[in-house]
């Protein structure tokens, strides 16, 4: 019974770290990295849950595990799109953050 609880706490810590990074870090690439850490934490919690919903005779419940596989692939696709957009934005405007320029808060969009 040791593993799941420990990894559950780790998942919680990763979610907190990822969320903190998403808010505090300015560069888009760092935000994307933080998003992936946050996602990793969420997936780990699914893994922990899979150990608890397993019936006698099975090491783990395959349903949440399949969900994590789906989730990892979707997160990869999202990362690829975010990176493509970030690179394009950098190419056109040389910007590496998404914070609005201070003078254009409500201006041209």
């Amino acid at each position, binding site marked *: 019974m040791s593993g799941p609880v420990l990894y559950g706490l780790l998942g919680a810590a990763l979610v907190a770290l990822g969320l903190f990074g998403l808010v505090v870090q300015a560069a888009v690439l760092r935000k994307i990295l933080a998003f992936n850490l946050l996602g990793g934490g969420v997936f780990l919690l699914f893994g*922990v849950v899979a150990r608890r*919903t397993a019936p006698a005779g099975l090491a783990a419940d395959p349903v949440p595990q399949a*969900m994590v596989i789906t989730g990892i692939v979707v997160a990869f696709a999202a990362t690829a799109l975010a990176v493509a957009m970030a690179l394009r*934005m950098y190419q056109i*405007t040389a910007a590496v953050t998404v914070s*609005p320029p201070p003078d254009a808060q409500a201006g041209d*969009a």
Partner: protein
Amino acid sequence: MTATTPAGWLLVVALVLPVAGMLLAFVLGGRAAERLALLLLGLGVGVGVAVSAAVLRMGAPIVYLPGGWAPPLGLALVADGVAAAMLLTTALVLFAVALFGRAAHATPPDQAETRAALAYWCFLLALAGSLAAAFLGGDLFNLFVALEMLTFAALSLACLEGKPSQFRSELRYLLFALIGSVLYLLGTALLYGGYGTLDFRLLAGRTRADLPTLLAAALMTAGLAAKMALFPLHLWLPPAHAGAPPAASALLSGLVVKAAFVLLLRVWIWVLPPLPAMAAAPLLAALGAAAILVGSLVALRQARLKLLVAYSTVAQIGYLFLMLPLVLSGAAETASHAWLGGLLQAGSHAFAKAAMFLAAGLIATALGHDRVTALGGAGQAVPRAVFAFGLAGLSLMGIPPSGGFTAKWLLLTSALGDGQWWWAAVILGGGLLTGGYVYRVLAGTIAAPPGDAPRPRPLPHGPQNVALGLALISVALGLLPLASFGLVQIGRPGALGALP
């Protein structure tokens, strides 16, 4: 409860048609993509009507179990009244927007495929499929996948023009959407850990008010609120929606936020146990009220027409949250009226806001700019677009007869009837402020053009008629007798099929 019902196959059709169409359109490309999209989006209206008719006829949700696997092992597709009504709304708006974009994204027979045209037609179909998945999904994890599909489709449409100025705001939109999804997913992990299923109809009535469940609901609510741009998480929406091309703005504001809204209802009305939901609902409604007031006030002060319309979206989304404390309050009649009012607000706002964004786009094209202070001459150049803007404005303000009026009136009366008069005050105040910004635009467009300005360019009637048609639907919703909306009550917990 967990078996495929008669007419359940319609749900498969609703999902498979647009999705398979997108895959084929992507392979065939060019002109074929355009034709396929127009054909399938047209058929989609028929499917939407058929699903609604089937739900009405049965008087109960229709269900389909893919592969025949019943939840909790498998997952279900479910069309209750909400899903059917939203599916039909979606189909109508999508088809209208497809017609609107026909001229701009046509591929003539002798020309090569272009980036924008292929992306436009493919992602219209993708959006139709994603929204169908989001409305019909009966499993909270399946709904997560639908939300992600929706993000991809919506974002690609928003970036269609490839303008340098828009990447920053659209990328911020993407980040908010992704954070929203991942918080939602976190909630589903906790729910699965608590109950061993994510089917919202199986969860209904089974959930306990313990820490994992309440935290899950809070996380899912926060994630969905970020996707819906609920105050104070609204700052990403105006630049993202205003920076997109008009057709995309219409879909983002009109439809995409509504998918998150339906999921929010699934969580609050089906999954959350009633007591904590009742206790927490006023908090969400207070944020909604703040959104109405702040969004309307900021819209009033906007210098650019599209940003004005986008801030109006922030405000109008606020109304959707007002329904929660009223629906959960307990009194049967209040709940049923507020439920109808909220859903009618979602539907009529979809038509009205789509019309408004399309009209604003046409006005901007005719004038060559979209500064609110220099709209003179638009009335002569694109009269139908201006008329559409005005009609849609009536619905947003809540002036009778319009869908928006009926929606706000229902919310108002149920608030007063339940003694929660403060929400009524917000509704009235929001209506006044909305009147202010709509009047500001209309007065400007009717004025004569300034002497030194270039002459506005008259535009063809076709796209203007589309905007007008959508605006007329949003008005016509207010002409129907209340009993004709019995559809949306079907399948609501506690409704027992009672008509209002």
